[in-house]
């Protein structure tokens, strides 16, 4: 009884000692190979979206509407590929919520859209959507305009162009804030140090990255899947799915999971004991494979009992993956996920 206990403690101490000697995060590489490319995609695809909106509204037609809808989905998915990065410039100026307001439990987006469409200010030359409610500024509002029963025209076209211009602006500002100039966020991110005003230590920053990953997996599990699933097949509600109008719900989750897996790979995989890395990598792969078993669109699948089970299965796998990160990975690298520090009050 006594000896194995000591043995285990020695092992734990040894592994901590070993790991603390070997851990050397390469934050500069995480920024240049993972984060900045995600924002480059967002900037480029929101620019393309804005161009498609101008083209459609100049001459509304079924074919250009299709092009615009496709551009919307592309830009929306680019955002989904950056959604797990919950730190830095995305936190300034409510950008995250201005890009996308979801979940929207009380129909705030529809409500504010209705009001704004009746507002005379909309057609004035100095109309500035970035000063309006966050609810009408981003992808959620745009999706409602683009995937309605009637093709958008008139005031709706004015509004949707304002939204796409706003999205392009936010996308380009995010990229700028990350990479340009003396105050580029990537500079602070790449070199945590005692005199760095934003990140004092490698451990602190690695903890924030881990929290970002964990938060995103929890968001997928409890919101993106949990909200439409409900408490049983008879309680499922397809219209509670994210992006149900455009049918991009599952594609969004797939992009999220791929992005999380990529961040794990570039940020943490190399620092872990091979056995734990294998378990986490397999858990990611299994979740992505399970996701691919679900037939799109999610809003319909969730209301079919057999598919409901598959979706719930994915939820459970994400829960297991989350625990691997929060417990095993955090322990192996001596990281704190942050409970009080990242969700303040």
């Amino acid at each position, binding site marked *: 009884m006594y000896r194995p206990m000591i043995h285990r403690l020695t092992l734990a101490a040894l592994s901590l000692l070993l790991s603390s000697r070997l851990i050397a995060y390469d934050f500069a590489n995480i920024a240049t190979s993972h984060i900045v490319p995600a924002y480059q995609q967002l900037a480029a695809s929101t620019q393309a979206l804005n161009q498609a909106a101008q083209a459609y509204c100049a001459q509304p037609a079924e074919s250009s509407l299709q092009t615009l809808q496709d551009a919307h989905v592309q830009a929306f998915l680019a955002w989904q590929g950056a959604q797990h990065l919950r730190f830095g410039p995305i936190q*300034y*100026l*409510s950008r995250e*919520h201005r890009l996308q*307001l979801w979940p929207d*439990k*009380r129909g*705030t987006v529809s409500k504010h859209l209705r009001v704004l469409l009746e507002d005379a200010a909309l057609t004035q030359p100095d109309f500035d959507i970035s000063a309006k*409610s*966050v*609810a009408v500024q981003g992808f959620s509002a745009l999706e409602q305009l683009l995937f309605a029963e009637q093709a958008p025209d008139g005031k709706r076209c004015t509004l949707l162009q304002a939204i796409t211009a706003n999205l392009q602006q936010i996308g380009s500002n995010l990229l700028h804030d990350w990479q340009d100039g003396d*105050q580029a966020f990537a500079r602070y991110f790449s070199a945590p140090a*005692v*005199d760095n*005003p*934003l990140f*004092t230590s490698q451990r*602190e920053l690695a*903890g924030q990255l881990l929290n970002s990953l964990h938060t995103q997996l929890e968001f997928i599990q409890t919101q993106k899947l949990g909200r439409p699933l409900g*408490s049983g097949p008879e309680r499922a509600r397809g219209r509670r799915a994210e992006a149900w109008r455009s049918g991009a719900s599952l594609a969004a989750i797939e992009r999220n999971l791929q992005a999380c897996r990529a961040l794990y790979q570039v940020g943490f995989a190399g620092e872990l004991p091979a056995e734990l890395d294998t378990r986490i990598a397999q858990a990611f792969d299994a979740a992505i494979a399970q996701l691919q078993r679900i037939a799109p669109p999610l809003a319909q699948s969730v209301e079919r009992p057999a598919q409901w089970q598959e979706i719930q299965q994915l939820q459970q796998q994400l829960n297991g993956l989350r*625990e691997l990160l*929060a*417990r095993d990975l955090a322990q192996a690298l001596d990281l*704190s*996920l*942050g*409970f*009080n*520090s*990242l969700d*303040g*009050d």
Partner: protein
Amino acid sequence: MQRRNFLKLGLAGLLLGPTRLLAADGTQRLLSCCSDNARNHYLAMLDTDGNILMQLQLPARGHGISVDPQQRIAAVFARRPGTFVWLVDLSSGEVIHKLQAAAGRHYYGHGVFSPDGDTLLCSENAFESGDGVIGSYQRQDGWQRVGEFASHGIGPHEFRLLSDGETLVIANGGIRTHPDLPRIKSNLAQMRPNLAYVNRHDGRLLHRHEPPVHWHQLSIRHLDVSADDRVAIAMQYEGNPLQRPPLIALHQFDHRGDADLQLLQAPQQVQARLRNYCGSVRFSQDGARFAVSSPRGGLVTLWSSDGDYLGAHQQADVCGIAVQREGFVLSDGSGAQQRLTGLSQATLLSQDRQLHWDNHQLEV
């Protein structure tokens, strides 16, 4: 769902048994909210060695805790934008009443009992207008909500009673939110936080103090009051993260109301590590010093009651501060309770890695 909660509550009740939670010899206890990895939320009572004596499951995440001056009842407040306040009998651990937010109101997470223990005041959001209010609940009326008065600002958060038993000092954080969009701060460009002194009977505003105009995005959130009515204030900055505003302040109430906020700065290196965010603030038992937690920087700074910087203690994700004769008990998000005596002697009392201690704790 409801049945499962009920069962867990029943279990909590069984765990408690019939024993008194408060020790007969008056030994101190600690109260704190916490959450586990499965996102269950509790009110916990601990002994002074950090051992958990009781866990009561809450319907959602808790935040502040107040105890009546007679130490019979603890009020545990839902985290904003919460809709419940539970009153817990401190001798049995039983829930004696569940307050529910009034229509058009939600709780901000803090409250105060009157000196006779018969009135509970709660900071609330009248969310359609965005006005901060203080709701009043009376024991004689079965803890019904009997009225409200203005907090004289947006976003009232923590507040306390001065030694006269009449005057409230209220931290109006200045940030407007609506429960439809609970995490969205809709007025960051226009925010005007303040510290308001308000009569608790008629809601009359005595004095109001704001940070300097160029620091108008300094949200005044948490405060504590010493026996001689010094108010220590912990703030959170909503502006550019590369700026370094003061985050801690002192204020002394006087009836003319002409004293300004005394803004405090730690030495430059330390100030930077506060990460523009302070969580809890508490005076020591003798009132000679106070402690402020900065969870983002993993730091607790110590200050004299005249505003001199004394030192700092490191503890990752630290937030809750309880007060003992020996010093402060500090809780963190990794389930640890540490006792800090003097300026730097820290002792780990207990740690449960499955638990995350929430923002505030209180001694009874």
